[in-house]
């Protein structure tokens, strides 16, 4: 099996569409090898709607209201922001199965500039009642997201990364709970999503060399979240670090902060993100790792800082009040 999440997604989609004539794939003139195969083998279920994302989502919603499952494919930043109101009103308010498959999570297209950065959409889509948001960290999870979202028959977005990392999970893994523990340790927890999961694992490995053992949680479904399970995991950890290649606003860190705010015994928490800014010009994952602490070293440093703080409860209390 290929490690490319796009291959996994389109293989899974090909399977679904070949077996269910009431599934469609629509695109805003975006191509991919997997799309070509679907267009060739199930042409009646494929539509290129042209570069018109608002209409694409409205048409998808109308089509879905006739009993079809409609998958959409395009670039993440365009398929979420340009047509946000259509997602909100035509898809989510009607609760119809329109499932977005969108390329360009995080800084996948970093060199292409801010128009192509997929770093605001989690915040946008988490705000939509009834929306499901998937952010798989490897190909196997990505394929499973297609099957899971198809089974729910509800609105969804599946974010795709350009990286093709080694698989994190075995064939046949049950992904239904939306989160996976990749390693466990008593000293803290690093919650990561998407490509950041791999950096978190590397950071955990480095920390273990100093006998610091942290849990790493892959939160690949950012909505809905099993809050009971998440709270229990956070409660069991003296320190919590979240890592995401996304704006500071609205993503994984916000999600954890919302959960922690409702806990009586809140852990020390640090949120690693891309901040709240336009990354003008060409940028890259390597830049974000170095300058926004998104790499293994930055994650490791954040855990160490929080552990130091946790060891000094009075100062930490004072700081939190301030």
């Amino acid at each position: 099996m290929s490690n490319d999440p796009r291959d996994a997604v389109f293989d899974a989609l090909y399977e679904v569409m070949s077996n269910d004539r009431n599934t469609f794939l629509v695109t805003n003139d975006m191509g991919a090898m997997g799309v070509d195969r679907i267009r060739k083998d199930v042409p009646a279920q494929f539509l290129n709607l042209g570069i018109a994302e608002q209409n694409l989502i409205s048409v998808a919603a109308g089509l879905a209201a006739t009993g079809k499952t409609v998958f959409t494919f395009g670039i993440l930043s365009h398929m979420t922001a340009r047509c946000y109101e259509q997602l909100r009103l035509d898809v989510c308010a009607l609760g119809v199965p329109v499932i977005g498959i969108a390329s360009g999570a995080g800084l996948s297209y970093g060199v292409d500039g801010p128009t192509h950065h997929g770093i605001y959409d989690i915040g946008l889509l988490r705000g939509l009642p009834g929306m499901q948001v998937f952010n798989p960290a490897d190909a196997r999870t990505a394929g499973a997201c297609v099957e899971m979202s198809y089974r729910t028959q509800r609105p969804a977005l599946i974010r795709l990364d350009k990286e093709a990392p080694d698989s994190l999970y075995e064939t046949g893994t049950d992904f239904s709970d939306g989160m996976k523990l990749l390693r466990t340790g008593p000293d803290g927890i690093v919650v990561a999503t998407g490509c950041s999961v791999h950096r978190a694992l590397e950071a955990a490995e480095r920390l273990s060399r100093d006998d610091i053992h942290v849990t790493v949680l892959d939160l690949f479904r950012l909505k809905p979240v099993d809050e009971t399970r998440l709270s229990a995991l956070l409660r069991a950890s003296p320190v919590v670090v979240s890592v995401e290649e996304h704006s500071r606003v609205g993503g994984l860190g916000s999600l954890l902060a919302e959960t922690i705010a409702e806990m009586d015994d809140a852990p020390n928490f640090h949120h690693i993100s891309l901040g709240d800014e336009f990354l003008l010009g060409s940028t890259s994952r390597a830049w974000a790792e170095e300058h926004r602490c998104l790499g293994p070293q930055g994650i490791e440093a954040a855990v160490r800082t929080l552990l130091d703080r946790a060891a000094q409860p009075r100062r930490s209390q004072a700081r939190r009040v301030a």
Partner: protein
Amino acid sequence: MKISDLEEKARRIRQQVLETALTGGKGHVPPAMSWVDIGVALYHGGVLRHRPDEPSWAQRDRFLLSKGHGCLTLYALLADRGFFPQAELETFVQEGSRLAGHPDPEIPGVEMISGSLGHGLGIGAGLALGARYDAEAWRVFTLLGDGECHEGSVWEAATFAGHHGLSNLIAIVDRNGLCSTDFTENVVGLEPVADRWRVLGWDVLEIDGHDLAGLVETLGRLDARMADRPLVIIAHTTKGRGVSFMEGSPLWHHRMPRGDEIARARAELAGRV
């Protein structure tokens, strides 16, 4: 129903629109008045296939009120047809009522949420595509405001529907000449409206949107239409139709009648003036 009966029905629907708004203390009365005759032709003139006791009947024609602010007329029509009790109209915009200032699918007979403009034609195109894929005979009617046609998404959808020849899609443009605060031609000109649709691959009909005989005849013959193109009906209407001081006036979009205006409006709609 005879044309004279339909005309009487339209007069009563207009009265209901006014009374519902007065009870609620707000509402878009003039944009509702402009499409009352179109609505009566659709719902009472034997055009729309529908079952009030089975709102989700699979074979129903889909009617999408894309100009959601015209919902007072839709509510009056749906109540009159028996989709929900007439008395429920008295709850309009009251807390907890299903009947908000813009419609949503919680209301029996309402297919989409509207109020934000420029959504109905795209959804309608998707519905029409699905019906054609399934070889279903039901049709999609979408009522658009003319001010709504300033939205770019309308033209994305019109281009798409024209390209795909969605002959089961019928758009009706409520061409009353006014948007919210001014005449459309003063704001951003839409003319020549018919040509715009025609070049995108639509059949175009222009009719008097208050002539019930003409509306019923035109809308009643759609099945006999041999077509491979979607159809747009540009219905020339008067915003605020039936209440003289509201008619065709940029002042009257969501303004409510006050004082003597109320009695005057009631009298005119009752035919006493």
